[in-house]
């Protein structure tokens, strides 16, 4: 038995490639989280525990940010929890998409982050969705934790990842996932509307909320588009007039 065909299939998979490049781009930023967390007053084990167990970058930075700024630990926990609300939304999406069973379900939940949702959601083929989720989820987890440890131990002496020229790489990766979807008219309308409400909302609402507003707007537009042109498959599944 040879594993060569499976290896070739993975190498040719766009979801795996995209997941790996996102993991590399995002994981390196664990250095700045680790360094900042120790500066904020957390110990190295506490810093590593946040990356391993909380594992959602926005909430982690919010937590150490409030602690470092002199806020209470309750305030830090609240800020981190509010920033994580979007992950519940991703959970619904990924659950509907991948339908994990058994032990996979709690593992899927832990790996549910911006990057795994984006990589899986950008694929149309269910196999590719699954590959994208696992590659980005596991890849980011490994590198994020490795570089968190490096940052926490080595601190400022390693330098600033932004100076390495990688700061735009994750945005480029998200854009690379979005771009192919914009060929069709419906997703284009959704994307433009979502980007618009995000940019309008950012100065006025707390961090983490703009994407929830954008998700609500996207959902409303998707439903409106569906009502305009019902897909035959879905129309047959429901007694409701489409």
């Amino acid at each position, binding site marked *: 038995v040879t594993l060569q065909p499976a290896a070739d299939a993975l190498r040719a998979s766009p979801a795996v490639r995209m997941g790996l490049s996102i993991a590399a781009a995002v994981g390196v930023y664990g250095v700045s*989280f680790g*360094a900042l967390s120790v500066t904020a007053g957390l110990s190295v084990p506490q810093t590593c525990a946040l990356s391993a167990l909380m594992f959602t970058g926005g909430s982690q930075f919010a937590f150490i940010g409030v602690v470092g700024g002199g806020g209470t630990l309750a305030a830090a926990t609240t800020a981190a929890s509010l920033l994580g609300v979007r992950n519940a939304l991703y959970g619904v*999406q990924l659950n509907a998409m991948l339908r994990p069973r058994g032990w996979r379900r709690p593992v899927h939940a832990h790996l549910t982050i911006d990057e795994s949702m984006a990589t899986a959601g950008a694929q149309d083929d269910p196999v590719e969705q699954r590959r994208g989720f696992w590659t980005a989820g596991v890849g980011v987890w490994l590198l994020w934790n490795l570089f968190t440890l490096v940052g926490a131990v080595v601190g400022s002496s390693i330098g600033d990842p932004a100076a390495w020229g990688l700061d735009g790489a994750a945005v480029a990766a998200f854009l690379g996932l979005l771009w192919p979807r914009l060929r069709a008219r419906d997703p284009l309308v959704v994307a433009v509307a979502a980007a618009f409400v995000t940019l309008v909302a950012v100065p006025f609402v707390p961090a983490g909320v703009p994407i929830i507003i954008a998700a609500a707007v996207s959902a409303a537009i998707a439903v409106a588009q569906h009502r305009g042109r019902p897909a035959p498959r879905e129309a047959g599944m429901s007694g409701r007039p489409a």
Partner: protein
Amino acid sequence: MSLWGWVVAACGIAYATKLAGYLLPDAWLDRPWVATVSSGMPAGLLASLVGVNTLGSGVSRVVDALPRLAVGGPPPRPDYSGWRPMGPTSEARYSCELYRSRVV
């Protein structure tokens, strides 16, 4: 509660939030409008992520910085209350700036 206690509590809340989406029953997921929304929403979420990561942090930070530029003087103490950026990239860049302003 100790710092360790709050770290563990915050991690627990984050995980429970993630898990909540996976505990919805299949019958609920099989409703047609769920399929419609899940197929239509990724484009919006991706566009929002791109927007927040590229412009979101920049715009609010530029606006915040304008009065200080006019007044001059030493760099202000890092203000952690306005954590606008959401994606790891812009957050990391922001944190690096804060870090430098504290250390250097």
